[in-house]
């Protein structure tokens, strides 16, 4: 359950988003150095954000790329 203090759980998103004040950040770092449970949960959240970004990757279809290129006012081939 982490350390069960609830504060660390509420601080996690602002911490990872860089939204904490210097004082809060200092307190958070101090706590994470002492509390392995919270530290693992914070690192998991960071990994999760990365994993979500990678997991939803879907390459753009070539057909769409061609259609977009055709929308140009003057395709490079037609230029002098």
């Amino acid at each position, binding site marked *: *359950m*982490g350390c069960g203090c609830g504060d660390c*759980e*509420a601080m*996690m*998103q602002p911490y990872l988003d860089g*939204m904490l004040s210097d004082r809060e950040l200092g307190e958070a770092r101090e706590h994470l150095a002492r509390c*392995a*449970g919270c530290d*693992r*949960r914070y*690192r*998991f*959240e960071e*990994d*999760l*954000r990365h*994993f*979500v*970004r990678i*997991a*939803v*990757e*879907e*390459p*753009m*279809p070539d057909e*769409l*790329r061609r*259609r*977009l*290129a055709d*929308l*140009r*006012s*003057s395709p490079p081939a037609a*230029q002098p």
Partner: protein
Amino acid sequence: MSESAPSAAETRRIAEAARDRVRFEEEALGLSDQVFRVARRLAGSREEAEDLVQDTYARAFRSWRQYQPGTNLRAWLLRILTNLNIDRGRRVQRTPETQPLEEGDYFLYNKLESSISDENPDEERVIERLSQNAVVEALAEVPHDFRDVIVLVDIGEFSYADAAQILDIPVGTVMSRLHRGRRILKRQLADKAVSV
């Protein structure tokens, strides 16, 4: 001197505008992979995303003069795209009466960890409980208002300010929706974890 013949200055101006336009188009096309990536998760299906991106570029190329050089072109394109998406009536799908399920920020970790027999496993082992499909499905189940913000900030890597401008909502709303949206996403993921 004929009246209809354009002056040298005017000829130069026309040539410059044509060059600016080509430069704009090339720059916009260079961002198409990133635009598609965001569009794919804002739209319900791949076909919808493709249509949205195509319509976005058609509109952007028509109104290229409205873009202010030096500002964020990717955000400008996404603003067009989200407006088109709303015009297509995707808001109709909303069900505002249902409150999405939401738990605390540690909920997913605690649930996944409890499915592993080791005590205090590494976070890498915990994340292995999640599959790529689970993430795609869970994200699709997050209600639109929250999902839009997650897609722009966490997947599109837009700043809060850019996301606010794209969605035409205050920055504070971006932040609160992002925080709640991530909790909703994790709540959905907890149901889709790989069982050991």
